[in-house]
């Protein structure tokens, strides 16, 4: 009886590790993965082969971990090219191919379809591990896994993962190298599975291809979805439930799949964030009684109200942007044809023109989201066209979006911290430090204070009204210490009061010596704010000059009002 319980507990422990691994990839970094078993298989087969060859346990552990991690990074690469639906299908494919390979490769390699057997049990000082010691070893790895996961969840890297999950493009524009961030998630997640495989091979004493194919991988997806994806408690709860339930329902063995499938559909219908997910009934009802760490509220009474303090401004170097003869075509359509503009520090340049003139395409090109078919873009004389969006952001060009793209489920403070972290902390070692640390939070709160958002710091960004979301987008790029600001219709959809304070903010940023490019349809505001206008129509630059003159230009009037 004890042995039976110990066995179940060990299986649960192994499943917790795999579930935590998948949860890092899917729950934190937002990359669907339906073939997680392949990483477990690498760990398990590596361990089995090494132990059968008489290698010491530690060597097996290290190689199992390394092998899975490397394979994780490798299989994370397709996520850079394809969208998430493709990735889901691709990972299913991966599961089938890897499972099949083990079975069909020469028998001497991986033991064919029957796999490898008689893997020696671990020993300590010549004494073989019993069920208890096995569980103890698994337990230690689970505790270490949870501790490391907690560390990651609270780290700059964890925050960056969540930003990728919320909105990958916005995360890139905030200066995150999302490619690297995603591959790291795959690598670490796979590493967890590698360790799980290491335990599995010794615990079972045998490994076979079907232990790790598509269906076992699906089981892991169920585990995290059932418990609550994107949390640590979720995968743990899911693994425990799915470990115990089949034992309780042994008397209905015949209907096991039916029950399992119905459970999955039921939970997805009624508790889509999982039984203990952030939005679940259970977790929210626990919410009031749950212990929460006290938040340290910085003293913002001492901070300037509108002025962005010098501390946040960082570099005093004044920056200018020069765009020369930039063109781009989509298919046969020339969306931009030899457009040129220059903006100097402390100046506001208005890019105006009717809908479809190519204004947003221009921003997409400057910020690196689109590649121009011709022309040059220089920042302080250095060419920057062809660089990745994150590199361009890091150089100090920040942009906002016409249709706002805050990280919806991150708090306002976290939204700003994503950019701050991309700028200052996304380096090896530094990236695993806690992001809620003093200096960064103080700096971010100061920024929020200066943009009038301090009262909303701990609210989810999606709950803000549009006006404040637009401010949040500006606050984010200020956290990047952007010296060139590309503001895409920052006034659209704002009430008169909101627009008024937004205008003050833009003027303050201008006073600080930042170079601002503004796309705006509201002529009154544009004329008020801008020093210079560039007018686009059907991708061509039809006029430029001081606003008052441009507004009198017959070609401009015609473009706006028609003949």
């Amino acid at each position, binding site marked *: 009886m004890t042995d039976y319980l110990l066995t179940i507990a060990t299986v649960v422990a192994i499943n917790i590790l795999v579930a935590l691994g998948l949860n890092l990839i899917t729950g934190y970094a937002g990359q669907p993965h339906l073939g997680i078993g392949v990483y477990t298989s690498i760990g398990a087969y590596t361990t089995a082969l090494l132990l059968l060859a008489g290698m010491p346990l530690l060597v097996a552990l290290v190689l199992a971990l390394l092998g899975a991690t490397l394979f994780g990074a490798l299989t994370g690469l397709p996520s850079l090219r394809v969208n998430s*639906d493709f990735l889901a299908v691709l990972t299913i494919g991966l599961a089938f191919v890897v499972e099949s390979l083990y079975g069909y490769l020469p028998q001497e390699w991986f033991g064919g379809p029957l796999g490898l057997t008689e893997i020696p049990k671990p020993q300590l000082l010549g004494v073989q591990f019993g069920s208890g010691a096995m569980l103890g070893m698994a337990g230690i790895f689970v505790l270490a896994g949870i501790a490391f996961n907690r560390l990651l969840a609270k780290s700059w890297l964890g925050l960056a993962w969540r930003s990728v999950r919320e909105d990958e493009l916005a995360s890139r524009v905030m200066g995150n190298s999302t490619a690297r961030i995603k591959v790291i998630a795959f690598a670490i997640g796979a590493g967890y599975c590698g360790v799980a495989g290491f335990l599995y091979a010794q615990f079972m004493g045998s490994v076979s291809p079907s232990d790790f194919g598509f269906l076992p991988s699906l089981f892991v997806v169920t585990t995290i979805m059932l418990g609550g*994806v994107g949390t640590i408690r979720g995968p743990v709860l899911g693994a425990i439930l799915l470990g115990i339930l089949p034992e309780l329902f042994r008397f209905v063995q015949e209907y096991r799949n039916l029950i399992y499938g*119905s459970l999955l559909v039921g939970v997805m219908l009624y508790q889509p964030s999982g039984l203990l997910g952030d939005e679940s009934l259970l977790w929210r009802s626990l919410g009031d009684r749950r212990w929460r760490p006290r938040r340290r509220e910085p003293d913002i009474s001492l901070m300037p109200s509108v002025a962005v303090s010098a501390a946040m401004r960082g570099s005093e170097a004044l920056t200018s942007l020069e765009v020369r003869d930039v063109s781009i075509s989509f298919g046969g359509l020339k969306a931009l044809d030899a457009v040129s503009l220059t903006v100097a520090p402390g100046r506001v340049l208005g890019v105006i023109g009717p809908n479809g003139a190519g204004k947003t395409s221009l921003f997409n090109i400057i910020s690196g989201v689109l590649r121009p078919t011709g022309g040059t873009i220089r920042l302080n004389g250095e060419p920057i066209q062809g660089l990745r969006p994150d590199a361009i952001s890091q150089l100090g060009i920040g942009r906002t979006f016409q249709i706002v793209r805050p990280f919806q489920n991150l708090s306002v403070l976290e939204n700003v911290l994503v950019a701050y972290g991309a700028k200052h902390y996304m380096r090896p070692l530094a990236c695993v430090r806690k992001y809620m640390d003093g200096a960064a939070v103080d700096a971010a709160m100061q920024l929020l204070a200066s943009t009038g958002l301090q009262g909303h710091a701990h609210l989810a960004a999606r709950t803000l009204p549009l006006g404040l979301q637009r401010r949040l987008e500006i606050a984010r790029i200020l956290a990047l210490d952007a010296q060139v600001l590309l503001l895409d219709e920052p006034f659209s959809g704002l009430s008169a009061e909101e627009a008024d304070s937004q205008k003050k903010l833009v003027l303050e940023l201008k006073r600080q010596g930042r170079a601002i490019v503004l796309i705006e349809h509201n002529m009154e505001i544009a004329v008020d704010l801008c020093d210079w206008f560039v007018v686009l129509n059907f991708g061509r630059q039809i006029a430029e000059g001081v606003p008052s003159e441009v507004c009198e230009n017959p070609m401009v009037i015609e473009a706006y009002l028609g003949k």
Partner: protein
Amino acid sequence: MALFAQQILNGVLIGTLYAMVALGLSMIYGVLRILHVAHAGMYVIGAYLGLFIYLRTRSYLAAILLSGIIVGLIGMLLERVVYRRMFNYARDVPLIASIGLFVVITDLVRITAGPEPLPFLIGRTGAFNVGGIRLSNFDLSFVAVSWGVIGLFVLFLMKTKTGFAIRAIAQSREVAQMMGINVNPAVQAVFFAGSFIAAVAGVLVGPFYAYIDPNMGNTFAYKALAIIVIGGFGSMIGTVVGGILLGVFEVLMVVYTKLPLSQEALAMLFLIVFLLIRPTGIFGSARR
């Protein structure tokens, strides 16, 4: 040469089945942006219903029509009861639910009809040679029915008002709604038509392999996903071409190469290589 042609023909026939299942999946992805894995369950239920009706009525045509209609209604039910309520949930929620549904459907079929394969034989009389290729009468009716149904499906999409609405929704649900298209009935129509054609594929596959079993949908479920990816999500022609390509590819690989992989794994390998070369599919456009 004749052997080669025979293999190609086999590949095309199997590929046609793939295409039939994948068409519905692709349309459903088009209107709802979900991967309806349980769609392969429609094919399984279709095959079993087809056999049941055929044994009662001894009419293959009745089996095709009745099974198609009943399964079409089941498809509509799934949409109404499960997917419609998940519209605002995170995108992986309907995917996981659909995998759960597929497990439930397969198991229900196993429990009601038994786990063993059931023979599905219709009087196969007559065969003739065309330039060395053997064609049975069943092969001919197979081709007639499958391409007839695919043709009807395409006509439905291209020529009817509902089909027009469906194509508009696939472009943009919001804009279609603003133009006064009632989205829900159109989505229901997609589920009916898609499930109908999958069920017909199920009724055809029975006599083709001469037996059916509860797990027959497993490989189809994931191959159909592969096909709509290869075809470029939401493209009709791409889906049909992708299905046939996959069918032919599988047959040729199994017959003429010694790659150490199962048929499923070959299909998935085809998919992976294809995706890495052309991430948007045959006729797909880049869209997220």
